[in-house]
């Protein structure tokens, strides 16, 4: 981010801008939805292994479903990590536009 020639930043003004409110809402909705999803999928593992026998059944040869579920969680981590980067790059662009909008307003 560029510095603004030593002028103090009016955070309150940015915080009240409609474009910023929208970005903040969108970003938080995205973060927390995804977090709930991966958290539930992860915590389901010990619940299923402790209270059911579903994952103890053999899937292919001697490999039981629990290994597939576990490996699925690994794939989920890598997948969601890259998914996050894609979304975050978009958010960065919007944040930059918001700052530019603020600077235009502040310059007048």
């Amino acid at each position: 981010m560029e510095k603004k020639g030593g002028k103090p930043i009016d955070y309150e003004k940015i915080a009240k801008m409609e474009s910023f409110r929208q970005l903040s809402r969108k970003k938080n909705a995205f973060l927390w939805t995804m977090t709930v999803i991966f958290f539930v999928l992860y915590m389901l593992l010990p619940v299923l292994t402790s209270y059911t026998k579903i994952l103890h059944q053999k899937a292919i040869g001697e490999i039981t479903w629990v290994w597939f579920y576990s490996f699925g969680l690994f794939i989920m981590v890598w997948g969601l990590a890259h998914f996050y980067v894609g979304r975050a790059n978009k958010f960065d662009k919007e944040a930059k536009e918001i700052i530019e909008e603020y600077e235009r307003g502040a310059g007048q």
Partner: protein
Amino acid sequence: MSLTSIVMFLAIVVVTLYITYWASKRTTTASDFYTAGGGLKGWQNGLAISGDYLSAASFLGIAGSVALYGYDGFYFSIGYLVAYLVVLYIVAEPLRNLGKFTLADMITARFEMAKVRGAAALSTIVIVLFYMIAQLVGAGALIQLLFGIPYWVSVLIVGVMMTIYVLFGGMTATSWVQIIKAVLLMFGTVVISFLVLLKFDFSIFRMFSEMATATDAGEAYLNPGLLYTNGINTISTLLALVLGTAGLPHILMRFFTVKDAQTARSSVIWATWIVGIFYVLTIFLGFGAAAFVGKDTIVAANPAGNMAAPLLAEELGGDILFAFVSAVAFATILAVVAGLVLSGASALSHDIYGQIIKKGKITEKQQVMAARIGSLVISVISILLALGAQTLNVAFLVSLAFCIAASANLPVIIYTIYWKRFNSNGAVWAIIGGLITALVMVAVSPNVWNPEPGKAIFVGTPLVTLTNPAIISVPVGFICGWLGTILSREADVVKYNEVEVRAQTGISVNEVSH
């Protein structure tokens, strides 16, 4: 101790000391000392995060657990990895945008009060000390086994090395020790995994079908239930693993070594791949050790299974691979404890001395001096504690550190960034509430009390059956933060505007990281 071992051991010492010498010439300001000037690239920091994170508990501990308990040993690998999604989605970028050197900096970006900073520094120091004792006691025992030197000498060697890295080379030396260690560790793990797969003709199916009969547990080895039989306990442990990472001071500190949120993001991606691939490979290390070394030999060398990976290396690759893996284990320990010293010193010297006692009125030169003295103090305390704790079973301390991090640090981090109504009273309550609950519940747990003499620290009946209290202490941390907030009228909407704007956009990050 063979000649190959001595050569590789010395090579690690010489290379890391040279790096420290090189780094010492670039360490003049407090920012150099704590954050390597904030100039690390994404891949460098990603490797350093991996080097910081893959402790001896991961490398030797998980390989040993998988070898002895099959699938149940693998739970840790999954939890430790999924934790990075919490770091990436919730914590990394706002932390980079708001903080300077420490977790307390980030929280006090919103509540500039000594009590908040003090509470955050306290929980950091407690976590660092627990984690460090576990690492140092483990290191002493391990080096004793690997190289045949007495326990106290081993602890002193590790202790002196970590002190030198941090004292002279600060974060620059620590980061590069971690980067080199991560590369060596990955190389060693890939080589062993390759040799294990070779034995199974590169067929995963063949590996699993042989493992179904290779151990005396039979097919049960390939299913959950050999180690964890209590459902609530399993859930609680896995909860601590996934939420703890995002509150571990030495991991959080790594996000201040990069220039902006984008670089913080890319370093987590790097770390996710490296750490993830490593954890997949722990299956091969564990299965290989169970099949080719055998449970009896592993347990005879160390009851917790810590020698599984080195013994497997010896079995498959002879003396040279054994020496290499032992040297890697040594480097692993050094990299992790150096990171811990640095994060402990930052809480002690920057938060408590510089910001609370001196109220920030401290010159650059004094800051660096304070940082060095703080590192020395943290090092000496932890070496002394480790020397005294030789006979204690400290394996539970690592998961306890994760539990405290999840209970005391994570709630306050989340509230500070995302909850408008949150206030300083809530911040102190969240930290202290989570910290005390976790500590008290462990103090009355089966880790500390066992009716049979020698099984735990004290002889007696534990008050709770949970070995890891996360399932209680994490919610308590969140509830305390909420209660403390609503019981106080204080609210700071103006300051929250600033925090929200900075966290979401990264504006003014130059000012903070300066």
